[in-house]
């Protein structure tokens, strides 16, 4: 352990001070040197600004390369950036690589969306300094009619454009500029980029021989396209090696000209050697593996184009190197490995793009890109994959204590107890992660809905915060599939004949008639279902159109080199033709309130007939003001999460309906669209939504998960929550986010661990897909509100991510405090 360990501390306030005392001096320095990119009420931390260099160099290249094939323009743009953008090395660091010129910068991708550009350009946070605007202005203007958004909008109807331009509506949103992919790092580590370049060069040689001397055939057409792609991939891959070498050069310059400390000089020379070697050549030890992964991830998924998530099975991809270095050859101590994994967390924590104000409001306290790394699970043979590195990573998390990256643990009954104890201790010390996914349900979902084989399903890692994606075999997701539907919106539309009355003032859904004319609950349910049918069709259709355009003008040429099938086929990873196994889903934030709304309508209007639909609409239009007694009646209707069979039955109907409606749609590659109820992306946005039939007023938060009971409504204990949640068929959903708060005092010590183990066994036996915990008491949270300066290190689980509590706005803080603390 690094200068002591992240020990069990019963006093919550001491966890972070204890971590600070116990982490190495290097980790402590790096922890303080890292910049938080989370937002408070939409505002970035002081000193965080837009990074302009990537756009500057990319745009400069774009101007020079007119007339060349689009894939090649992408590659040449990447090359220009990688060869020219300033690079830096932070003192004490062992891992290098960033997507902007300074560590306080958030990269801006001006080629993506004009609407996003305008929001950032006019950002009230002044992330673009006034004195820069004389040259930023023409750059923004340049992309106004060339960006990806414009090209997608050529294929959209007016209705689709209107929904998108309203921002948090439905479908493909310009504000959501990230892709998300799953790379098989074993392929990269074992080959190195130089070998991949050689393979590409061989493909090019073969193709050019055919094109230059063979007969004209139907394949000639396709071959021309492939040659363009291979050329582009080769340019991009060579540029990434140059970029890595630049870091090696800088490390050497610092060592030879600036650094006076002998030990640090030696470290810098080692960094220089590593950067000269990886990612060009195969990796041979843990340090090289971590550096190689960081280079290819940052270059391919942040500089080439941005990707949310940080999809990988961290304790599996690094395990062969850790085992050899730490356990067998002992060339690295376990302390040094923990330190390296801790720094890896910090390097991931600092990376994100700049997003508009409204996205910052939605993702309170988070760096917005939801990097989630996967731990645990089973190996290719179905045996427990937990290892000493899994526990070292969790120890590193407890030592550096940052909100992101988050970790997800693939829970199964054979997981070794020492690893489960490490998970428990990490959650108990207030980090809110790892979250837990049910190994059996998650794998069944991938097999039964997407056609993954058992071996493929066993290789899965989370793509972003919640969604599993296959890594091996036909897996390796190349592009973001997902779109969004604000889950409460169809309820609001069903109550208003498809019209959204208070936020957007738009006819956003089909005319399903005045709900007052529905004579039976089933009729109203069908109206709501039709709204969902329309929304899913819109979201999946628009996403597919965007995918067509992205494959032609927003290729991911370097990342394509990391996929063996793209190297073989000469087809870009974002092209549907390169994806043999689908992984499409529509994220469904803000849905969980729906089930209580639906049951309240059924009981109050159709079963008990105490109120009419017209009266409900009046009360909602008045935001429940002037309807106190009626509101209380609607609040008092039994709520989901209390093991109430009737309420749970309606909930199961709702989840089944959304799964079926989403499943009506097919992806471009022929795969099935699934839906994923969660709230990772929009917890705080819920306050914007109009009043709802569960008694919630506009301005109040919505429920906090994809299947979490309403805060404070789950009154019958944790088992009742689990029984209610288990009445939903989780295999029909992509995943489903369940937040729970547990009592930190009850779960202290060995007895607490055994209680938690019993809880997890019940959770697993009930086939519930997901659960995650907060274990911070209200006294601590209240104290942090009063004296935030003393609680800078306090972390809580917000939705699909964790965040520093004091960086959340007051509304979100209250929402977390209001969640029921369960005694188990």
């Amino acid at each position, binding site marked *: 352990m690094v200068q002591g360990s992240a020990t069990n501390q019963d006093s919550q306030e001491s966890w972070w001070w204890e971590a600070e005392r116990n982490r190495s001096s290097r980790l402590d320095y790096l922890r303080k040197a890292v910049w938080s990119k989370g937002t408070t009420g939409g505002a970035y931390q002081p000193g965080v600004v837009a990074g302009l260099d990537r756009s500057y160099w990319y745009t400069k290249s774009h101007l020079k390369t007119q007339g060349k094939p689009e894939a090649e323009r992408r590659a040449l743009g990447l090359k220009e950036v990688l060869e020219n953008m300033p690079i830096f090395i932070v003192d004490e660091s062992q891992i290098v690589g960033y997507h902007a010129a300074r560590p306080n910068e958030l990269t801006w991708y001006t080629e993506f969306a004009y609407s996003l550009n305008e929001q950032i350009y006019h950002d009230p946070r002044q992330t673009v300094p006034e004195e820069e605007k004389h040259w930023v202005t023409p750059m923004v203007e340049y992309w106004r009619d060339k960006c990806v958004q414009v090209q997608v909008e050529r294929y959209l109807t007016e209705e689709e454009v209107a929904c998108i331009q309203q921002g948090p509506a439905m479908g493909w949103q310009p504000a959501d500029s990230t892709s998300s992919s799953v790379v098989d790092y074993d392929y990269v580590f074992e080959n190195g980029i130089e070998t991949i370049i050689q393979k590409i060069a061989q493909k090019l040689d073969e193709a050019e021989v055919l094109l230059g001397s063979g007969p004209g055939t139907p394949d000639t057409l396709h071959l021309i396209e492939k040659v363009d792609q291979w050329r582009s991939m080769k340019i991009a891959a060579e540029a990434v090696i140059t970029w890595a070498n*630049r870091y090696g050069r800088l490390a050497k310059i610092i060592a030879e000209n600036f650094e006076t400390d002998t030990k640090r000089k030696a470290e810098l020379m080692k960094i220089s050697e590593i950067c000269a070697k990886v990612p060009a050549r195969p990796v041979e030890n843990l340090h090289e593996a971590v550096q190689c992964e960081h280079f290819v991830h940052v270059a391919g998924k942040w500089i080439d184009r941005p990707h949310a998530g940080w999809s990988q099975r961290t304790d599996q991809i690094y395990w062969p190197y850790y085992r050899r270095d730490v356990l067998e050859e002992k060339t690295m101590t376990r302390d040094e490995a923990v330190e390296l994994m801790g720094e890896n967390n910090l390097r991931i924590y600092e990376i994100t793009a700049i997003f508009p104000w409204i996205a910052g409001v939605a993702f309170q306290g988070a760096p917005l890109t939801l990097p989630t790394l996967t731990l645990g699970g089973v190996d290719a043979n179905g045996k427990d994959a937990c290892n000493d590195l899994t526990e070292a990573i969790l120890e590193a998390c407890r030592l550096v204590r940052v909100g992101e990256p988050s970790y997800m643990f693939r829970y199964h009954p054979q997981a070794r107890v020492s690893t489960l104890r490490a998970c428990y201790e990490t959650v108990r010390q207030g980090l809110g992660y790892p979250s837990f996914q049910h190994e059996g349900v998650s794998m069944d979902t991938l097999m039964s809905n997407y056609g993954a084989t058992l071996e493929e399903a066993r290789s899965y890692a989370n793509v972003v915060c919640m969604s599993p994606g296959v890594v091996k075999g036909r897996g390796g997701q190349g592009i973001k599939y997902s779109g969004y539907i604000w889950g409460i919106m169809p309820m609001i539309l069903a109550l208003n004949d498809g019209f959204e009355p208070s936020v957007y003032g738009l006819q956003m859904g089909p005319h399903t008639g005045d709900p007052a004319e529905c004579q039976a609950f089933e009729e109203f349910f069908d109206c709501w279902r039709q709204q969902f049918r329309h929304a899913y069709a819109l979201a999946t259709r628009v996403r597919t159109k965007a995918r067509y355009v992205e494959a032609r003008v927003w290729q991911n040429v370097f990342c394509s080199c990391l996929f063996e099938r793209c190297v073989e086929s000469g087809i870009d990873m974002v092209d549907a033709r390169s994806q043999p196994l689908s992984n499409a889903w529509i994220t469904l934030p803000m849905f969980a309130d729906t089930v209580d709304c639906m049951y309240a309508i059924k009981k109050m209007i159709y079963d008990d007939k105490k109120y009419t639909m017209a009266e409900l609409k009046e009360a909602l239009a008045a935001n429940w003001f002037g309807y106190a007694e009626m509101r209380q009646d609607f609040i008092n209707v039994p709520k989901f999460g209390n093991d109430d069979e009737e309420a749970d039955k309606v909930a199961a109907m709702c989840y089944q309906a959304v799964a079926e409606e989403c499943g009506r749609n097919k992806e471009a590659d022929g795969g099935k669209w699934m839906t994923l109820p969660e709230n990772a992306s929009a917890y705080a946005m819920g306050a914007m939504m109009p009043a709802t039939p569960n008694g919630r007023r506009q301005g109040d938060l919505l429920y906090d998960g994809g299947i979490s009971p309403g805060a404070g409504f789950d009154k019958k204990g944790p088992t009742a929550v689990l029984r209610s949640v288990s009445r939903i068929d989780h295999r029909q959903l992509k995943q489903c986010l369940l937040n729970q708060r547990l009592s930190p005092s009850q779960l202290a010590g060995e007895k607490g661990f055994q209680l938690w183990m019993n809880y997890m066994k019940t959770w697993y036996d009930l086939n519930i897909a997901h659960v995650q915990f907060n274990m911070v008491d209200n006294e601590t949270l209240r104290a942090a509100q009063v004296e935030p300066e003393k609680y800078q290190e306090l972390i809580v689980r917000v939705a699909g991510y964790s965040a520093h509590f004091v960086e959340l706005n007051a509304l979100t803080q209250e929402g977390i405090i209001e969640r029921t603390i369960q005694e188990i």
Partner: protein
Amino acid sequence: MAEKEVPKTCGYCSNFVQLLSELEGICKAIPSEKPGARGKKVRFDMDGSECPKYNALTEVRRYDVSQQAGWGAGGFYQMRSADVFATKDEEKRVDRLVYQKHAEEEPKEKKKEES
């Protein structure tokens, strides 16, 4: 200006290089000669002529805000490539991008004591 330790290779292309004596002219313009001072320019050359593969005039700057409160309390070295300084306007642009205050590096022992 005394330059005792110099880079031996060009990081771009691994060609052996030597620091040119003409570099002194550049270095004199730099406000401080202390190790860690900002704006130290290093020119790479091979056998007396510019590296043939890259226009490898570069600048390494030192930023140190390790004493600031809150996030980002650390120091780092930043390297820019020659192209950034193609014109005077460009140089001004980049200079304005310098974030926050940057102090000269303090002795590391002192920093450790204070922390």
